[in-house]
């Protein structure tokens, strides 16, 4: 998650802020004009970082919202006087935001390459609209003859015609935008955005509506870009449709990455460095004849930067992210009280459950009863039937026939989301946690998903409850000492424990674990099986495994599935002696054993 900036970074930012404040005094007109451009650009690219760096949406059309903001000033400004900035600026943000809502609702349906191309295309669409038609002067561009003023109740407070005044307004707005985004990213809402960036599938499985979050991120970023746009229009009073173009969007992405995506302060540095670099490359006095081919020079620099320093300037300043030693004390914690609390382990039953895929019968007429507060093993010589059964139990697939009941309630028609809300959760064969988050942050987001108001910006209301649930979960699985360790730094077994902790933190009372012991050595296996035994006290555990020693040691009942059919169900001892089971696994070689 968004790392706290190092002291070095804070110092650098502080120095820049002071330098910025002093520029009108110390620098000339040109310096102020240059600096104003940098500030406006910085607001623009900081908003883009919300999309690219935080949410992971690579938008190649962000400039269109910048341009809309700029054109908004043109639309609002009366012919003969300056517009009221207190109206014009929010109006620009509103226009950009609404456009983003419309465009984003379609664009966010896509992902990966498609999203990049779609945002590019929409940007070009707006370019064409403003270039071909006479909406706002067409290809000639548009003029804003009189700069806006800031007036309140008819009294003019500031005239933005004055360069220095306008400069400080821009500086103030940049600081506000940066701090605002910082707060946003650190809020529960921002936590979800970052989760979506690194593991959208997991967030979706936890119950978050990722489409809505991505769309909101898109709109917020667009509104801030619109603000930058209207400021831009105020600088020179001239705007042209090229502002919509993908070249502008591409340069914006460049600034974000050069500065350091995902850090919020990085892109500010990126905007500054890029502007300076551009000036240098364009000036023959510095670089000689290649000045006329500065684009090419920029291209080579970009390649070098992306390959050599992918984390940008911010990455270089921040250094590697270390792990903090956790401060939580070991010892068993009491289970936190949960709002809308759920009881202890659940009773799960199926009746004649079947699933057919085309001609293949994956699960056939399975009738089972999993008693609460026990560990139930599910085994079988081949793989397919067991995985399909789990998918049916968690609602990832719809059954073809049969019923499922949770604590007596018929859950056959429930959606995946509803099943999750009722306390059933699963883990995956391949570890599916959010790697850049710490163990604690992983559990926090799992806990957040199951609170009634998952979509929120304020930390206060449920923060204490979520922290307690996360702490309890991590304690229950034995990860107290690793609470603040980044998940990618955990050992394999610890990652598996974390995965189980996430399930507990989300309030699940029926845990379905899919081969949790895969790839583990004897010591880790022992630890995790002991954990499962302990968990059964307060949960029901369903366990698909192939490690026979482990499952025999920990399971209260065993269910044997062969080619999707229920072959046997009983205690481990009964199963071991069951001749049908032996035959299913060993063929003729099993028969000799049963005779003994």
């Amino acid at each position: 998650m968004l790392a706290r900036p190092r002291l070095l970074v804070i110092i650098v930012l502080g120095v820049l802020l002071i330098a910025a404040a002093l520029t009108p005094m110390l620098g000339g007109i040109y310096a102020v004009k240059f600096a104003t451009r940098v500030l406006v650009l910085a607001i623009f690219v900081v908003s883009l970082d919300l999309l690219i760096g935080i949410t992971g949406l690579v938008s190649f059309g962000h400039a269109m919202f910048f341009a809309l903001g700029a054109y908004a000033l043109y639309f609002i400004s009366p012919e003969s006087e300056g517009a009221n900035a207190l109206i014009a600026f929010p109006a620009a943000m509103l226009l950009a935001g609404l456009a983003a809502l419309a465009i984003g609702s379609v664009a966010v349906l896509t992902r990966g390459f498609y999203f990049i191309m779609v945002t590019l295309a929409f940007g070009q669409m707006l370019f064409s609209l403003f270039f071909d038609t006479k909406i706002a002067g067409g290809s000639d561009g548009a003029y804003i003859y009189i700069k806006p003023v800031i007036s309140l109740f008819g009294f003019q407070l500031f005239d933005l015609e004055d360069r220095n005044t306008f400069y400080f307004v821009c500086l103030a707005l940049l600081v506000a935008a940066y701090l605002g985004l910082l707060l946003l990213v650190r809020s529960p809402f921002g936590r979800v955005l970052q989760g979506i960036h690194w593991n959208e599938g997991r967030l979706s499985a936890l119950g978050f509506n990722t489409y809505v979050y991505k769309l909101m991120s898109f709109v917020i970023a667009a509104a801030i870009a619109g603000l930058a746009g209207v400021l831009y229009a105020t600088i020179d009073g001239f705007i042209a449709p090229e502002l919509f173009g993908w070249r502008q969007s591409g340069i914006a992405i460049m600034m974000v990455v050069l500065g350091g995506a995902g850090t919020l302060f990085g892109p500010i540095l990126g905007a500054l460095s890029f502007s300076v670099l551009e000036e240098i490359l364009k000036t023959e006095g510095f670089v000689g004849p290649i000045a006329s081919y500065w684009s090419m020079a920029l291209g080579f620099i970009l390649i070098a930067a992306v390959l050599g320093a992918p984390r940008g300037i911010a990455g270089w300043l921040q250094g590697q992210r270390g792990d903090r030693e956790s401060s939580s004390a070991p010892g068993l914690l009491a289970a936190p009280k949960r709002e809308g609390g759920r009881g202890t382990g659940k009773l799960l039953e199926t009746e004649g459950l079947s699933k057919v895929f085309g001609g293949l019968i994956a699960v056939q007429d399975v009738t089972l009863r999993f008693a609460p507060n026990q560990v139930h093993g599910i085994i079988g010589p081949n793989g397919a039937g067991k995985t399909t059964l789990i998918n049916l139990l968690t609602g990832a697939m719809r059954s073809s026939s049969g019923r499922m009941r949770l604590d007596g309630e018929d859950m056959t028609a429930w959606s995946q989301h509803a099943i999750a809300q009722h306390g059933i959760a699963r883990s995956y064969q391949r570890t599916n946690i959010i790697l850049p988050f710490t163990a604690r942050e992983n559990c926090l987001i799992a806990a957040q998903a199951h609170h009634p108001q998952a979509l929120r910006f304020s930390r206060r209301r449920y923060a204490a409850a979520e922290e307690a649930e996360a702490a309890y979960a991590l304690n229950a699985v034995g990860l107290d000492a690793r609470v603040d360790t980044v998940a990618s730094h955990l050992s394999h077994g610890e990652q598996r424990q974390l995965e189980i902790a996430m399930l507990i933190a989300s309030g699940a009372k029926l845990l379905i674990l899919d081969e949790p012991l895969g790839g583990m050595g004897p010591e880790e296996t022992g630890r995790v099986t002991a954990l499962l035994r302990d968990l059964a006290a307060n949960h029901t555990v369903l366990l698909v495994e192939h490690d026979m020693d482990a499952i025999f040691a920990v399971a209260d009942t065993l269910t044997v599935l062969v080619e999707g059919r229920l072959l046997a169900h009983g205690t481990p001892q009964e199963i071991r002696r069951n001749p049908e089971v032996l035959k299913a696994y060993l063929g003729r070689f099993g028969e000799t054993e049963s005779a003994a």
Partner: protein
Amino acid sequence: MELVLIQILNGLQYGLLIFLAASGLTLVFGILGIINLSHGSFYMLGAYLSLTLTSLTGDIFLTLLLGVPLAFLFGMLVEWLFVRHLYGRDHLQQVLLTFALILIFNDLQRMIWGTRPHSVPIPSYLKASIQLSDVLSYPVYRLAVAGVCVVLVFCMIYVIQYTRIGQMIRAGESNREMVEVLGVDSRLLYRFVFAAGVALAAAAGTIAAPIDSVYPGIGEPVLITSFVVVVIGGIGSIKGAFFGALLIGLADAFGKVFLPEFASVMVYALMAAVLVVRPGGLFGRV
């Protein structure tokens, strides 16, 4: 009425041209798994090759014969030098690296050919126009362009359906790993596919050059439209690219007839409509 007919013909011809360019792009997406923003630059390469070679040979078809293999070789060079370092990188890096390539190619073009627009002569035997009615005629050259596109499309289909390398491409589209397991070194396959993509885009640029003038940035609209075609058709699908390109050609044509100011917007509206129904494209594999 005749105006509509002309626009439809234009739309079809444009659609075929875009299909030529977009098919290379979708192959690169589908088989190499990379997004290549510099694809428009190869169209531009074709246009400028057309300029230079036609002034040497005097005939656009000779130019095509010479230029396409040249473009193919250039594509292999670019893949070997640069593109193969993109495989496996995340989308953001691919976007930026190929964006950098555009910047470099644009300035290279300026260095070699300058910024003034140039025109490429239509061969004398194709300068005529066909009479469609008393009032309207249609340039023969445009029909020839459509014809060349169709021929190239058939060549492409032939290669893909009936040659061994075509089999490898088709196999690679459905199961890249298995192709490797069977002993085909994918690296060479990728180089070929990328070079083919470049050659197709360049061919489109070459034959289209005499229609308009040749100027810097001629490839950019082609890039955008190719992207839209791929989005509509589905990444990796040649069939999708074909239908997408024709749809776009016709949408553009009708736009020009009925809503001339909003003609270009029509194309994007079409894209948006397709996405709402099928976010993976008409024939896309998700």
